[in-house]
């Protein structure tokens, strides 16, 4: 266990030292919030179903953060570690393979939650963010959404032949998710066809789940989202486990 904690601590430090990764997790969502916040403020707005832009967008932007850790950081980190022989070097020690993977998952989960927390604090301090749900439920939904997308990230890392391809595939998955799910732009803006396509984008379910619970929807109203994300988690984890390569 000592090795796990030390590795997780080290990976967290390395994550924060990597300016691009930490920018997209910690800074970019807040900049986006300030951009739209400076246009719309957080007044009740019919365009946002009578709610404030910031209140609606804060849970949605959490999906941006999940996408950046799950579809960008994890595929690059794992495939680079494999390509450069770093995973092999770990395997030549008594450290358990599960500790290596567990450290990667934990650190990226913590970074996602940290990014979400920073976003909430910024939204609260600058725009007086409102919250009408159960904080524990939102937290659990956030963790489920994150792990679900992490399984996709690991899948990309497992199947991609090298880091370059993993990076590319991660981006190809990330951007449609980002723009079609309502994470960046509210789906209310979309014409019906785009909206329909959006239903098939996994991140849409994250946005709906987090926004719904944020405003106090009962969990029962979001069973579809929970089943989709849970299913993605199980299927992604199983295929990753079967196809994962250490070298």
């Amino acid at each position: 266990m000592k090795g796990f904690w030390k590795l997780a601590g080290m990976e967290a430090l390395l994550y924060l030292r990597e300016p691009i990764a930490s920018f997209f997790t910690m800074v970019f969502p807040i900049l986006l919030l300030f951009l739209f916040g400076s246009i719309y403020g957080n007044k009740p707005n019919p365009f946002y179903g009578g709610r404030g832009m910031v209140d609606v967008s804060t849970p949605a932007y959490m999906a941006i953060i999940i996408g950046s850790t799950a579809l960008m950081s994890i595929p690059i980190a794992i495939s680079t570690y494999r390509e450069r022989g770093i995973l092999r070097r770990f395997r030549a020690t008594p450290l358990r393979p599960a500790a290596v993977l567990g450290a990667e998952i934990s650190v990226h989960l913590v970074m996602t939650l940290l990014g979400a927390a920073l976003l909430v604090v910024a939204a609260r301090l600058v725009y007086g963010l409102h919250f009408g749900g159960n904080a524990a439920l939102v937290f659990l939904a956030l963790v489920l959404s994150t792990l679900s997308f992490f399984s996709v990230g690991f899948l990309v890392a497992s199947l991609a032949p090298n880091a370059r391809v993993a990076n590319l595939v991660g981006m190809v998955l990330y951007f449609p998710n980002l723009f079609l799910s309502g994470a960046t732009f509210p789906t209310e803006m979309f014409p019906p066809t785009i909206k329909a396509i959006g239903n098939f984008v996994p991140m849409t379910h994250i946005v709906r789940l987090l926004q719904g619970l944020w405003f106090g929807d009962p969990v029962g109203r979001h069973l579809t989202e929970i089943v989709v994300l849970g299913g993605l988690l199980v299927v992604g984890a199983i295929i990753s486990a079967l196809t994962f390569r250490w070298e």
Partner: protein
Amino acid sequence: MKGMAIVAEGLRKTYGNLVAVDGISFDVRENEIFGVVGPNGAGKTTTIECLEGLRSPDEGRLSILGLDPRREGRELRERIGVQLQSSALPDDIKVREALGLFASFYRKPADWRPLLDALGLADKRDAPFAKLSGGQKQRLFIALALVNDPELVFLDELTTGLDPHARRAMWDLVRSIRDRGKTVFLTTHYMEEAEALCGRVLVIDRGRIVALDTPDELIRRLGEGTRIVFAADEGYDPTLLGKVPGVVKIEQDGGRVVVTGTGDRLVVLVVNALDAAGTRFRDLRTERPDLEDVFLALTQEGKGGRV
């Protein structure tokens, strides 16, 4: 098998149709520096990785420090140190962080601070991995291989890519590891390295053992004896040295003469014969065959060209 750090019997590993290691057997004694040499693709790295437990052999029995690397891999890795041929660390990790991290992976880590001094990395302790030179990276990997105070250290092509100065420094380091009571198992494709460092050398080619002995014995067995090379001035009589006792072969290329022969007094006899005949010669030197000659004579690649 007391006194044996490694016992390998009938080790065999194939990749598809390619037989990388073809049933080799050898022992490594405690506290010796044991070297494996062979042309590229001879099976050196596959062999070392089977011993480290990083690869599973298809057949054969392995006992490393009395442990089976397949069944007792974790226990074995507590007690061995490993330097991999191709490996890296994250770019941004600092030298001291890497040592602290790897130390935490072991039940009984050594204090890694003295290793920084021993490996000349003390002034690089806060440098990130990506900023280290090739030699510094190699020294860091050796430090990582020693961080658990292992009984047996595996070094896979330790000095490949290093300049001659860094290579010599690395040799001293390997000797100091042995002098601290550890066993060293290394692969190399530099014959001078094997000759300088190893107590015994295993020569493999195409997955099979070609020879296993001390460097001196391997050279002696090649049986070429001493070579005397000199430049002869005009007036040199090619038949002159044929009668000198011990001379086996005389080759001449223009003014350059190469005399091959045996016997402790060979040089004296040849020089006396030249002098007695009044032949003037320049640049006389003697050559003993080295491990490289043995290697080229023994391995397949030697027939095609130099490694």
